[in-house]
C-alpha cells in the first residue's frame, strides 16, 4: 500500500486554507456586528479556526488515503468522514492524466487523474503524489498489468515523437482561439482596470467623460475595449495552455504534454479510440490549418470539467493533421459523397424561410410600435442565400471505407469524423417531415465516445432515402464483420499463446528466460 506524497499535506492545507479561510472571512464580515463594520478579532479568530480545521482535515485525509497497484486492479481507500474503498480493473482504465502547476513543480508533486469509461467524472484522483511516482503510475496503469521494476528504463527508448507544436502554430492558435471564460474575465478585468464600478459594466456617465463620443459611440467604444481585453486574455491563456505541446507514441498509446504555468501530461490508449474528429474552422482553413481530436469513451484528452473538449492536436497544417490521423487509424483516402443536389434546395428554402420569418416579425413590430422601422433591411441577405446553401451542401458528405465510416459537415467549422465500424454502438436512421418530402434522410453512427454527449455523433446528413437505408445496413453489417475478424484474431492469438506456454512447460529454462524478456 502506498500513501500520497508528504508534501501534499502542506500544499493541500494551503489551498484549502485559502478557500475555507476566505469563506470564514466572509462569514466573519457578515457576522460581526454592523455599523462599526469589522471586528478584527472576530474575523481573525474565525479565519484561524478555518485554517486549523483545514489543516486537521488534510492530515486526516493524508493518513487515510491508501492506494495499491495489484495484478489486475488499482485499489484506492480514501475518505475522512465517509470512507470509500475502490477497486478499478486495469483493463477498464481509459486515460491517465498528470497535472502540475508551478508551485507543485517546485514541491515536486503532481496530480494524477484516472479515467474509466462512462460517467461524467474522473474515477480516481490522487492529490498529490511525487513526480516520479506519478510517471510510474501513468505507465503502469496503462500497461494493463503490474510489471517488473526493470521495465521502467526500456519504456523511454521506443518513444516516438509524433507531433510538436511549432512556434507559428502556437501563435495562430492563440490569436484565433476564443475562450468564453477568458472573455468574461476580460470584461471584469477591464471594468477594474479602468476604475469602473464592477457592478455596472457599461456606466454611461464615466464613459462619456473619458472616451471620445457620447451615447451609442461610447457604448461601441466600451464594447470594443471589452472585446480587445477578452481577446488578449484569451490569447494569453491559450498560449500558456498549449505552450510546449508534444505528442508522442509509446507502443499502443499516445502521450501528450503541454502547458507553461500548469503542466499537463496524459495518455490516450489507442485501442480505446472511439472516433477521430478533424476540425477545420474558417480562419484556420484559409491558412491551411486544422485540428485533431482523439475521442475515447472516458473523455477527450485534456478535457477537464467545464472547459469542454480540447484537441489532441490543437492546431497543425492540414496535411500533418491528416497524416497523424492516418497513422492512428489508417482510414485511407476519403472521397466523400456529397448529398444529392435537391438537398441544396432544401437548405436554400430553409434560409429563405428563416429570413421571411425575421422580416415578418419585423414588419409586425414596425406596424405596431415605433422602435422598429426598416423591417426590410434583412432582404439584402436573400442574395446570399444561394451561396450559403451551396456552401453548406458542398461541405457535407460521407464515405464508407472498408474499416471506417467518414462523415463531414459544417462550413464555418468543417468537422470530419472518422469512426471505426467496430466501435459503433447503434445505427440510427432519421428522417424529418421536410426530409421526407425530398426523399432524404440522415444516418447517425453512435459510439461510446463521451464527446458526443456535447458535440454531435458522426452523422451523414441528407443522404438519398434509399441510400440512407443501405448505409444503415452497411454500417451494421461491417460492424458484425469487423467484430468477427477481431474475435478470430483473438482466438488465433490465444491459441498461439497456449502453444507457446505448453512449449515452456516442456523446457522450464526457456520458459523463464522468455518471461523475463517480455
Amino acid at each position: 500500500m502506498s500513501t500520497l506524497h508528504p508534501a501534499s499535506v502542506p500544499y493541500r492545507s494551503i489551498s484549502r486554507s485559502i478557500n475555507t479561510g476566505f469563506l470564514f472571512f466572509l462569514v466573519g464580515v457578515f457576522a460581526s456586528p454592523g455599523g462599526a463594520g469589522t471586528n478584527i478579532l472576530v474575523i481573525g479568530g474565525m479565519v484561524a479556526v478555518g485554517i486549523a480545521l483545514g489543516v486537521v482535515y488534510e492530515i486526516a485525509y493524508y493518513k487515510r488515503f491508501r492506494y495499491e497497484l495489484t495484478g489486475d486492479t488499482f485499489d484506492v481507500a480514501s475518505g475522512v468522514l465517509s470512507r470509500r474503498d475502490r477497486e478499478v480493473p486495469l483493463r477498464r482504465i481509459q486515460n491517465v492524466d498528470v497535472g502540475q502547476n508551478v508551485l507543485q513543480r517546485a514541491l515536486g508533486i503532481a496530480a494524477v487523474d484516472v479515467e474509466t469509461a462512462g460517467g461524467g467524472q474522473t474515477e480516481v484522483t490522487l492529490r498529490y503524489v511525487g513526480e516520479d511516482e506519478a510517471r510510474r503510475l501513468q505507465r503502469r496503469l496503462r500497461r494493463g498489468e503490474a510489471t517488473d521494476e526493470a521495465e521502467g528504463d526500456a519504456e523511454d527508448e521506443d518513444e516516438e515523437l509524433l507531433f510538436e507544436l511549432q512556434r507559428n502554430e502556437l501563435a495562430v492558435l492563440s490569436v484565433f482561439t476564443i475562450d468564453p471564460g477568458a472573455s468574461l474575465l476580460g470584461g471584469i478585468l477591464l471594468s477594474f482596470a479602468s476604475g469602473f464600478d464592477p457592478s455596472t459594466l457599461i456606466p454611461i456617465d464615466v464613459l462619456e467623460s473619458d472616451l471620445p463620443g457620447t451615447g451609442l459611440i461610447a457604448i461601441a467604444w466600451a464594447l470594443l475595449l471589452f472585446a480587445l481585453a477578452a481577446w488578449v486574455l484569451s490569447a494569453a491563456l491559450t498560449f500558456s495552455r498549449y505552450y510546449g505541446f508534444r505528442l508522442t507514441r509509446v507502443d499502443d498509446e499516445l502521450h501528450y504534454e503541454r502547458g507553461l504555468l500548469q503542466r499537463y501530461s496524459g495518455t490516450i490508449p489507442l485501442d480505446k479510440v472511439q472516433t477521430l474528429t478533424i476540425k477545420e474552422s474558417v480562419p484556420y482553413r484559409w491558412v491551411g490549418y486544422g485540428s485533431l481530436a482523439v475521442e475515447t469513451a472516458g473523455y477527450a484528452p485534456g478535457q477537464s470539467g467545464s472547459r469542454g473538449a480540447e484537441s489532441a492536436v490543437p492546431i497543425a497544417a492540414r496535411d500533418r493533421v491528416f497524416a497523424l490521423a492516418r497513422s492512428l487509424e489508417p482510414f485511407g483516402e476519403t472521397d466523400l459523397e456529397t448529398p444529392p443536389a435537391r438537398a441544396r434546395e432544401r437548405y436554400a428554402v430553409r434560409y429563405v424561410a428563416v429570413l421571411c420569418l425575421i422580416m415578418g416579425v419585423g414588419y409586425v413590430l414596425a406596424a405596431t410600435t415605433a422602435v422598429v422601422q426598416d423591417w426590410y433591411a434583412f432582404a439584402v441577405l436573400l442574395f446570399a442565400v444561394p451561396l450559403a446553401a451551396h456552401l453548406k451542401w458542398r461541405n457535407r458528405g460521407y464515405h464508407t471505407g472498408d474499416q471506417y465510416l467518414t462523415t463531414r459537415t459544417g462550413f464555418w467549422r468543417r468537422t470530419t469524423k472518422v469512426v471505426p465500424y467496430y466501435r459503433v454502438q447503434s445505427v440510427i436512421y432519421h428522417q424529418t417531415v421536410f426530409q421526407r418530402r425530398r426523399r432524404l434522410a440522415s444516418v447517425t453512427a453512435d459510439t461510446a465516445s463521451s464527446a458526443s454527449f456535447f458535440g454531435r455523433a458522426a452523422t451523414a446528413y441528407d443522404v438519398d432515402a434509399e441510400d440512407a437505408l443501405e448505409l444503415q445496413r452497411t454500417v451494421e453489417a461491417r460492424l458484425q464483420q469487423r467484430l468477427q475478424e477481431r474475435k478470430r484474431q483473438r482466438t488465433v492469438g490465444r491459441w498461439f499463446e497456449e502453444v507457446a506456454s505448453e512449449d515452456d512447460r516442456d523446457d522450464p529454462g526457456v520458459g523463464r528466460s522468455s518471461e523475463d524478456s517480455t
Partner: protein
Amino acid sequence: MERLNPRVRVVWLLVAGLRAAMLGGLLVGGAATVYLTGIWENAPQLLVWGALGVAVALGIVRLAIAWRRYGVWRFEVQDDALYIERGVFTRVKTVVPYVRVQHVDTRRAPLERAVDLATVVVYTAGSRSADVAIPGLTPERAEELREELRRLAIESEGEDAV
C-alpha cells in the same frame, strides 16, 4: 415486424391529454390573469378566448400525434440486432446490435400498470441510444423479450463493450 399492444394507445393518449391540459391551463390562466388584473388596460376579451382556442387546438394535435404514433411504432428481433421503427414527424429507425447491449430492464409506470402493460429498456454504452425503450408490451411478452435479448446479448459475446 412486431406491433405494440393496442392498449398502449390508452397510456399515450392519457399522457398527451394530461400534458395538453397542463399547458392549456397555463395558457388560459395566463391570459385570464392579464385580462382580469389590468396589467394590460382595456385588454380585449378575445385574448382569453384566443388562448382557450390555441390550447384546445394544441391538445387536439397532441392527441392526434399520440394516436398516430401507434401506427408507426414497430420493432423486430433480428438475427444479430434489435430493429426499431418509430416517430410520427421524424421517422427514426434504430439498429442496436446485440453485441452492444449492456443490460436490459423491464419497467412499469403507474399508468402502464393500470392497463397491464410494461416497457423494455435496452442500454448500450453509446451516448445517443443509451436507453432504447420498447413500450406497450404485455408483462409476459416484456419478460420474454427481456430474456431473449439477454440471451442474445450473451451469445453474441462482444469483447469490450466500448
